[in-house]
């Protein structure tokens, strides 16, 4: 007899069942995304149930995007989705790898559990394995930041590695250049908001470019100059519609229309003084975050000032960065205001839209990438790929160490773990061997996805590593083992985060022996 202690509808899974459901859930997620791994990985179509026609369809290769879009009901699977999201936020790429590695570790753990090894013992083994894998990775990491030419070559290589598994693979050299240039312009900042990506359908993907100036997707007011040389720019965040009285509770109360007219005139006067104050700063371009009404717009036109309204928060911030000006909201103390400057401001046409281009900016810490492509899905995926590459690059600028890809690092770590396992007495060493095997699965999956004989290749790769050729990796285009140094480069931070996140998640899932699911909340329709 058992007592009912939970709500109706609540379920509980215990011991073996709980473990099984967790491991199966995690492996299912791993299997789901693993075919997207590597330069020969495939894409997935995601169709949302609510989206109609074209809008709901997303074609992607990005692990985080795929996992985010799937509604899951398995606790362990949700943990994996979470690590992939964290990987995305932290490094920007490797979102698939982290899930696949965690799933592979758990697959090995399942075998160990079948041998009646206590989960905590397995965890102990995995911890030792993670530590020695990490050490091996750190020893293998190199930094070329001092050598400018080599450093740029490394960055390009990292960008190519990231992009090669994405839709942009065909033009990866071009896009690698674009991404590296864009990131180097940030001068060490990791704030990717400063790189604006403008997507326009039409044209070819290879027609995309990094603009030498900054492009703002806004229009210039009517009757105002379309092009200005030697621009002095004021970036502002101020109301240019009706400048309301801000004192709380103020209210206009008049007794006749004459008075009303007077108040109106006063309001207009106020706006005119504001415009005059702004004009008196000696600027010829005025960019405002908020709306500019017709009346002040006309005033600006009269003063020969180019006025751009409704540039949103991001636009204003980027522009301030590019031109070196301050975002101003008060204009009474001109001596304290810092104006921005750039060589030219002009209207340009991209696709069929008019935009404003700020060329030859003074500070230039922000930039614009213009993406072209045949379809919306293509552009969206291209944007995600570019974002991944930019994110990895910007993190690499901060943590300049690099490691080699193509399964090289994994094999390196696997070997280190295997060697360490030999010196550990007890059952922990079995768990460590399992961990090493899970790491070796990564190059195997890469090879499988490329349609190659993975068992043969991985064995060859392993032999090469034991032979002392520690920079050997897979070349998935040749289908052979090659020296990947300088060819397939990856960020050290990325690889480390993949290793640590995956083993932390696997550990967390392994520790669980009970799943209690509360009764789902009743939804009212």
């Amino acid at each position: 007899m058992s007592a009912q202690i939970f709500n109706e509808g609540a379920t509980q899974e215990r011991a073996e069942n709980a473990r099984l459901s967790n491991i199966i859930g995690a492996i299912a997620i791993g299997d789901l995304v693993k075919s997207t791994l590597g330069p020969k990985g495939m894409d997935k179509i995601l169709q949302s149930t609510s989206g109609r026609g074209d809008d709901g369809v997303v074609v992607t290769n990005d692990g985080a995007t795929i996992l985010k879009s799937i509604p899951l009901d398995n606790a362990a699977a949700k943990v994996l989705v979470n690590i992939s999201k964290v990987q995305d936020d932290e490094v920007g790429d490797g979102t698939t790898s982290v899930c696949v590695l965690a799933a592979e570790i758990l697959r090995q753990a399942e075998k160990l559990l079948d041998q009646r090894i206590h989960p905590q013992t397995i965890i102990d083994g995995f911890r030792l394995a993670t530590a020695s894998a990490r050490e091996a990775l750190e020893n293998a990491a190199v930094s070329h930041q001092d050598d400018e030419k080599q450093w740029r070559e490394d960055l390009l290589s990292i960008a190519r590695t990231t992009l090669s598994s994405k839709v942009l693979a065909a033009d990866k050299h071009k896009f690698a250049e674009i991404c590296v240039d864009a990131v180097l312009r940030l001068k060490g900042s990791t704030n990717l908001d400063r790189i604006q990506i403008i997507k326009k359908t039409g044209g070819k993907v290879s027609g995309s470019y990094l603009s030498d100036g900054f492009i703002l997707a806004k229009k210039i007011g009517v009757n105002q100059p379309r092009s200005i040389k030697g621009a002095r720019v004021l970036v502002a965040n101020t109301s240019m519609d009706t400048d309301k009285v801000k004192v709380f509770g103020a209210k206009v109360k008049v007794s006749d229309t004459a008075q009303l007219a007077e108040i109106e005139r006063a309001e207009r006067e106020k706006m005119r003084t504001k415009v005059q104050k702004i004009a008196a700063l000696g600027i010829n371009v005025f960019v405002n975050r908020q709306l500019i009404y017709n009346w002040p717009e006309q005033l600006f036109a009269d003063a020969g000032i180019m006025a751009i309204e409704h540039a949103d928060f991001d636009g204003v911030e980027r522009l301030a960065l590019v031109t070196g000006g301050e975002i101003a909201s008060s204009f009474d103390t001109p001596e304290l205001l810092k104006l921005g400057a750039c060589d030219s401001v002009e209207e340009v046409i991209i696709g069929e839209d008019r935009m404003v281009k700020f060329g030859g900016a003074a500070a230039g810490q922000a930039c614009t990438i213009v993406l072209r492509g045949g379809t919306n899905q293509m552009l969206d995926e291209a944007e995600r790929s570019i974002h991944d590459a930019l994110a990895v690059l910007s993190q690499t600028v901060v943590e300049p160490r690099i490691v080699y890809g193509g399964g090289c690092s994994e094999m390196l770590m696997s070997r280190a773990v295997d060697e360490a396992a030999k010196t550990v007495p007890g059952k922990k060493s079995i768990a460590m061997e399992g961990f090493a095997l899970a790491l070796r699965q990564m190059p195997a999956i890469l090879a499988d996805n490329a349609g190659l004989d993975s068992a043969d290749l991985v064995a060859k790769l392993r032999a090469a590593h034991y032979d002392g050729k520690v920079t050997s990796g897979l070349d998935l285009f040749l289908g052979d083992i090659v020296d990947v140094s300088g060819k397939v480069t990856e960020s050290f931070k990325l690889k480390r985060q993949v290793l640590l996140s995956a083993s932390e998640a696997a550990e967390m899932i392994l520790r669980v022996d009970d799943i209690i699911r509360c009764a789902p909340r009743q939804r009212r329709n």
Partner: protein
Amino acid sequence: MSAVYTTDEYGRPFIIVREQDKKARTTGVEATKAHIMAAKAVANIVRTSLGPRGLDKILISPDGDITISNDGATIMSQMAIENQIGKLLVELSRSQDDEIGDGTTGIVVLAGALLEQAEELLDRGIHPIRISDGFEQACKIAVAHLDRVSDIIPWSKDNTSDLFRCAKTSLGSKIVNKRHDQFAQIAVDAILAVADLERKDVDFELIKVEGKVGGEMADSALVHGVIIDKDFSHPQMPKEVKDAKIAILTCPFEPPKPKTKHKLEITSVKEFEELQRYERETFETMVKQVKDCGANIVACQWGFDDEANSLLLQHKLPAIRWVGGPEIELLAIATNGRIVPRFEDLSNEKLGSAGCIREVTYGTTNESMIIVEDCANSKAVTVLVRGGNKMIVDEAKRSLHDAMCVVRNLIIDNRVVYGGAAAEISSSIAVEKEADQVSSIEQYAMRSFARALDAIPMALAENSGLPPIETLSYVKSQQIKQGISSLGVDCMNAGTSDMKEQFVFDPLISKRQQFLLATQLVKMILKIDDVIVHRSDEQ
């Protein structure tokens, strides 16, 4: 079910309980047994979480959110238990959590074991009240015994190694034992930084635990200062301020807003213009007042008007807006500043000071935090917990809280008993011995109490993959033979069962509280003999 009615002197039935059909009722031994059954079911769930080799539970909330935890109180409270007795056990672990902060799993397991023993006694026909009396007596003996076997551990500000070991015992069962030493050290340092050693008191308000996903657990750190999860109000303000003089404001940089209801009517152009001037001047005075008092950074609980923000930038005053209530208090404590409610009240001596205030950005999503370091008053600290996923960060935060509670308890009372269930086993022996001298029926109940105490070492041994009965009998016999009360279950296979050598300590007050609270609850459950459940909410 038998209807509850009685008859009057003419034989006509009348109902005592109204709306009989809508109510469920259980009575007598049947009720008590049903309760015991429920309590056992609950205790069995958390039983496997006990000890350094205990496992975790996944809890899925009604909305599908996931919590993974090893902490008894967390598991119990998130289980959404419907059963009345189950709810009492939830309360039990919560009161242990509120009072002590650790040992929330052990207390539930103990209560479950006591009830299990009570069931056997009930089967023998012993009255529930006699059982609870026996438990009460036994509990007194056990608690007195704990006092006797407890050791005083010496510690001082410079010698914290024993505090550190206690924190380690608490963290041993949690996932953070990956970075065991580091987290234990963080807990000890955090508590010692804020502890008032003279009054033997620790104010937990001064310790803030911030979690941030990303990185790994090893990146977690103790910051001697305050972390505010905000950024500077204007993107172009400097990201770092050295030798900061901070003005802490609880008034917005906005036009004044009188609290009394009022109405301001503009009836002429002149008034309109005057109001404009007033508005502009207000902003300028505000900024001027801040500048004049010598501040070089502003923290404000409220928002800024765009114009004020721009003026602040122009006057080189970096500012943080929308700082939450508790955070602004913490900031004030840490920097020795005063919270100023009006601009007019600002003066130099009310400013807080800190060595360095900087904005730190994490990851690729442009999230940032403001770190205030080298504060004038080192009493406020923040622990920044990092980890690979959200669940792990949450669990690490909970574990850290438990460990800090343990350290706090030791500062209040530095007596310890030995872990690894050594204290339970030795109490069990003591109770058993005393029981033989009791001449009444309570003797049986007292023996059962001793057996219930044995359930803890059994669970520990079971969770660690050791043979439970064998281990228990071995340790017990050794305790009696050698007369050492610090022998316990060697969960980690360290080779010795002497917990003194393994440095596994628990604060005495924590153990004592466990015994007292669990006995109290069991007595309460045993006293219930009638349950009436009103089912009016069923359709």
